[in-house]
């Protein structure tokens, strides 16, 4: 980090940007450079100051001077008088006394101030059903620029230099994809959009399509120009009715305005876009399966090569990009590759949208610069783990991804670093898990999903995932054998090596990462028949630590089986013959006095009727647990 003598914090909130703060920023940077001050004075764009009425506003540190209503023509004066001569410009100083604001400012709340909105820049700001509001936020300016001022090569070059990688999950460089297709000769080419978002817990693309459908169309127009396509399809699952509705309205409006159809903006360029509804098969997010589905056939992948860039939809050269990828493109064309690269890391540039869900306080949709550590996302933006529980793992990349444990939470979110953990960045689903989650069950959940969604075309995926699911089911139901862990790893390697498409090639990841980081849980399931989180019903016994029990009755009230006995001031006890292992008492207890023991404990407790003997078993179980 360089040392600057002065920092200028210029507000980049929507209000100030509308008032021209970005023009002021450019003027500041130019003028500072002209005077050779660029290494002394730093210009930073910040979140909203809350003084939108006086915008554009800026604060100069270390003096803490607050200027309001700054225009481009004020810039030379500020630099000359304040930065060089050290005399703050009176005329621009904030005048009124600051009104006491008790509602917190966005820039003071990590949920907002750690985010940078690019793909989501219109989030919650415009009416998605009004094209004019999109245009008011620079909409279709990038398409106009690409169509009137740029050659396809220039568009591709800008994208290549931006470093943008496919946001659907694989992270293939978008510019390179476009270049490959642009070089193929063909009378007809297709530009396609993948809105078949299917990872459990992921809703990034849906939100973009609902909140800002025109940005997807604009990205596709730019892509069509780059590769020379005149026909496009947006593949959206039918379970996204609002997204479909708003996209269709957007297409209709764009056609009326001549932004789609023939002779777009009078430039002679043609592009027609249609929506194709998917029936919700997960495999149709795979590019060749998606194309087959649009062709009206059963959605199944085919071997590559030939790659879609050569032979795609109806065997014509095609490019398929994800919704979020398209949402980034207009801004790259307008602001340039260098602007895009200014955030993120060398190989993972720009920002990424994540759907943050699970055991976390702020469930929502966020956009952060690439390279931010997972810990910051979970604890600062996400507000930490809900209900004061303990963090256990974060699942990235859905059924193709993996679970990352606590000690790797400082991993920066980039394509390269996340892959090192065994997970993938994926399309952006981020599911946070707490100490109530059993990691074997989590792996089983994802395997159930992939087994269901496997299209069945290739045996490694079809049979392999089924066999793995059987093994996991055996483990969680108490039939686990010692050799199962190695067996799971072996089968995983075979499925990864021999599956036809990404679905099979990545399906074992949730199993592999949970074995890697939570092997002890597999071992206790198999060897001790003990699920320590109490999720696997056949592998646990709930009992009361009578020393700790305050006899408050909380567990008694929530038990659906009336299995808890004990009066006020008498330690409670669980009747094992009635208990159905629902875990309600465990979650209700505030004194940590409900314990989860191995299955064998339950049998011993049920065999014993003698009070003294029972007490001994409890004491021994608690002692064993505390070791």
């Amino acid at each position: 980090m360089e040392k600057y003598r002065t920092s200028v914090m210029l507000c980049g909130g929507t209000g100030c940007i509308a008032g021209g703060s970005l023009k002021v920023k450019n003027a500041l940077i130019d003028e500072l450079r002209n005077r050779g001050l660029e290494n002394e004075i730093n210009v930073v764009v910040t979140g909203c100051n809350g003084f939108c009425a006086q915008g554009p506003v800026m604060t100069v540190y270390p003096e803490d001077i607050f200027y309001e209503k700054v225009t481009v023509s004020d810039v030379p004066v500020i630099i000359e008088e304040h930065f060089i001569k050290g005399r703050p410009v009176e005329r621009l100083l904030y005048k009124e006394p600051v009104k006491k604001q008790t509602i917190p400012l966005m820039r003071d709340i990590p949920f907002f101030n750690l985010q940078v909105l690019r793909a989501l820049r219109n989030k919650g700001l415009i009416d998605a059903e009004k094209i004019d509001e999109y245009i008011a936020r620079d909409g279709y300016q990038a398409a106009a620029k690409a169509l009137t001022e740029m050659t396809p090569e220039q568009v591709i070059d800008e994208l290549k230099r931006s470093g943008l990688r496919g946001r659907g999950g694989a992270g293939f460089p978008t510019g390179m994809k476009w270049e490959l297709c642009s070089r193929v000769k063909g009378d007809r080419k297709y530009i396609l959009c993948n809105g078949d978002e299917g990872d459990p817990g992921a809703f990034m693309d849906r939100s973009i399509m609902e909140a800002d459908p025109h940005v997807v169309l604009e990205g596709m127009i730019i892509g069509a120009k780059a590769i020379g396509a005149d026909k496009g399809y947006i593949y959206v699952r039918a379970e996204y009715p609002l997204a479909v509705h708003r996209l269709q309205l957007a297409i209709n409006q764009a056609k009326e305005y001549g932004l789609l159809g023939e002779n777009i903006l009078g430039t002679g360029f043609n592009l027609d876009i249609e929506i194709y509804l998917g029936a919700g098969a997960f495999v149709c997010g795979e590019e060749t399966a998606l194309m087959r589905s649009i062709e009206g056939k059963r959605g199944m992948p085919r071997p590559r090569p030939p790659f879609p860039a050569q032979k795609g939809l109806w065997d014509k050269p095609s490019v398929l990009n994800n919704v979020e990828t398209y949402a980034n493109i207009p801004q790259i064309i307008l602001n340039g590759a260098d602007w895009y690269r200014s955030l993120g890391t060398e190989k993972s540039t720009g920002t990424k949208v994540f759907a943050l869900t699970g055991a976390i306080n702020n469930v929502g949709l966020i956009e952060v610069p690439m390279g931010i550590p997972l810990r910051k996302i979970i604890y600062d933006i996400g507000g930490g783990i809900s209900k004061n529980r303990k963090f256990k793992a974060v699942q990235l990349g859905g059924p193709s991804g993996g679970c990352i444990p606590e000690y790797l939470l400082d991993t920066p979110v980039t394509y390269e670093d996340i892959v090192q953990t065994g997970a993938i960045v994926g399309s952006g689903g981020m599911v946070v898990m707490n100490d109530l989650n059993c990691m074997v069950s989590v792996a089983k959940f994802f395997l159930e999903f992939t087994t269901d969604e496997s299209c069945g075309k290739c045996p490694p995926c079809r049979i392999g995932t089924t066999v793995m699911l059987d093994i996991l089911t055996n483990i969680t139901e108490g039939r686990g054998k010692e050799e199962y862990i190695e067996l799971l790893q072996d089968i995983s390697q075979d499925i990864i090596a021999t599956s036809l498409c990404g679905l099979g090639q990545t399906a074992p990841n949730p199993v592999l990462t949970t074995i890697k980081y939570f092997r002890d849980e597999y071992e206790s399931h198999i060897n001790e028949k003990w699920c320590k989180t109490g999720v696997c019903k056949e592998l646990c016994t709930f009992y009361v630590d009578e020393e700790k029990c305050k006899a408050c009755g909380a567990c008694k009230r929530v038990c659906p089986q009336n299995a808890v006995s004990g009066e006020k001031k008498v330690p409670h006890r669980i009747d094992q013959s009635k208990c159905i292992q629902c875990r309600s008492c465990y979650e209700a207890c505030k004194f940590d006095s409900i314990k989860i023991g191995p299955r064998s404990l339950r049998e011993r407790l049920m065999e014993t009727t003698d009070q003294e003997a029972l007490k001994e078993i409890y004491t021994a179980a608690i002692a064993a647990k505390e070791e």
Partner: protein
Amino acid sequence: MARLTVDDLKKIKEEYKSTLTLREGGSRAKITVHMGTCGIAAGARKVMEAVLDEINKNNVKDVIVTNSGCAGLCSKEPMATVEIINEAPVKYVQLNEEKIRKIFKEHVMEGNAVQDYALVVGSETAY
């Protein structure tokens, strides 16, 4: 609607900027109800209906009511953003009919933000 040229795009941009920023338009305030799938599922339609009802009942003509997509905090939906001219927008969370009516009366009509329901004031950095 006529087919646009590149110049028309710029005209529309200037014309509609005012409805987005309240700077140059004739309106005094703007209420945005966030209506993505998450908002609607949590009850945003009822919130919207209540706003429209208040507008009609009070015969208010200088307030823009509009909807928009997900504001990003799905667990705190329904959400609405209220912006009074020359003031920073205020985001309200976990709304219902009663709350939005109170906000309408106290914030939109009387100019005092309802602190109990407000999450944050300001707009996000978008660049």
